[in-house]
């Protein structure tokens, strides 16, 4: 956010790689009033945000809703959070954004009504024969996993989301969470063990 009384300067973007501004440079540009900087951040990260929230959505539209909500929250909080962000540290914005997305997904999941009254119409029944059966079974598994995730602690669930849904290496999971890599791995191990207990006989093998 540009401060009053200070002459606005053209954003000085820090380049990474082949002329691509870093997230942190885009954050600085946004704070300096560059109207396109936030959009560039969205374009760069929306697929990862989608990956983190889509487990909790019933439809493609709802997935898009949650992505939009995540960025809307980030945009709304930008003026409060960005100036305090350690922009000299690469990955600071991404780590914060991913936490926002995980929390948006978690908050959405907390409303059980979204799932309870969700009969098979969410499954494409236009397919024929075994396709329908497979789709219904897949949907049932998806719901069981989602319910089992409720039994995880907050930290276990966050590590799980970043690792399984975000497909991040444990080093980055740890970075986002602000914990050590070994700690992230231990949390993940216990998360998977607890899921195994909850899913019980539904797990093959």
């Amino acid at each position, binding site marked *: 956010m540009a401060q009053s009384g200070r002459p606005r300067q053209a954003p000085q973007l820090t380049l990474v790689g082949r002329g691509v501004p870093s997230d942190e440079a885009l954050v600085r540009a946004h704070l300096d009033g560059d109207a396109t900087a936030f959009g560039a951040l969205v374009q760069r990260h929306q697929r990862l945000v989608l990956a983190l929230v889509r487990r909790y959505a019933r439809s493609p539209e709802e997935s*898009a809703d949650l992505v939009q909500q995540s960025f809307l929250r980030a945009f709304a909080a930008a003026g409060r959070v960005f100036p305090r962000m350690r922009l000299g540290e690469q990955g600071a914005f991404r780590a914060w954004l991913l936490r926002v997305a995980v929390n948006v997904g978690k908050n959405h999941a907390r409303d059980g009504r979204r799932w309870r009254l969700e009969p098979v119409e969410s499954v494409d029944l236009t397919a024929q024969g075994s396709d329908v059966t497979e789709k219904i079974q897949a949907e049932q598994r998806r719901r069981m996993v989602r319910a089992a995730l409720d039994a995880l602690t907050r930290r276990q669930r966050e590590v799980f989301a970043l690792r399984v849904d975000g497909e991040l290496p444990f080093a980055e999971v740890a970075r986002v969470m602000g914990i050590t890599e070994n700690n992230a791995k231990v949390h993940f191990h216990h998360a998977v063990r607890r899921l195994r207990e909850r899913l019980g006989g539904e797990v093959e093998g």
Partner: protein
Amino acid sequence: MSVDCEMLGALLSERRRGELPPDEARALDAHLAGCARCRDEARRLEPVLAMVELPPPGAAELEALRSRRIGEAPHRMPARAGWQLPAVLVAAAAAALLTVSVRPLSPRHPERTGAAAVPPGAAEGELLPAGDTQELFPELSAAEATDETVDTLDDDATSLEGPGLFGYLEG
């Protein structure tokens, strides 16, 4: 290289994705060969790792996301009369969202505990400028600020609290 049994699930996940370096993969195999408890645990956890994975997003999901045009700034809001109502709606949506998205006032900030002392929008950075919002979220409608949004705000999703966040924030 030793294997920590408390990280077995993580190691299996890394092996499943082909992320384990060869030496660590060999260490894991050697450990499983010699540790019956971990071998049994691995047999039970590997199917869980397979079951919890989601398929990649389909075309419909990606199209729904694209159609939102989130973050795009295709146009400035024209100063035509016909645009005044949408502008009002967006402003209302932003204001309604703002009222529920502002982080609950913390005892650590006693100077900000009076709503009357902090008029809407006065808190730096906590205002959604309607024009910017429309540009960055062109598909945002007034409905976004209804209960569909409110019910996600029991926890402020952008809270600075919690593990990890302070590590990236000054002060």
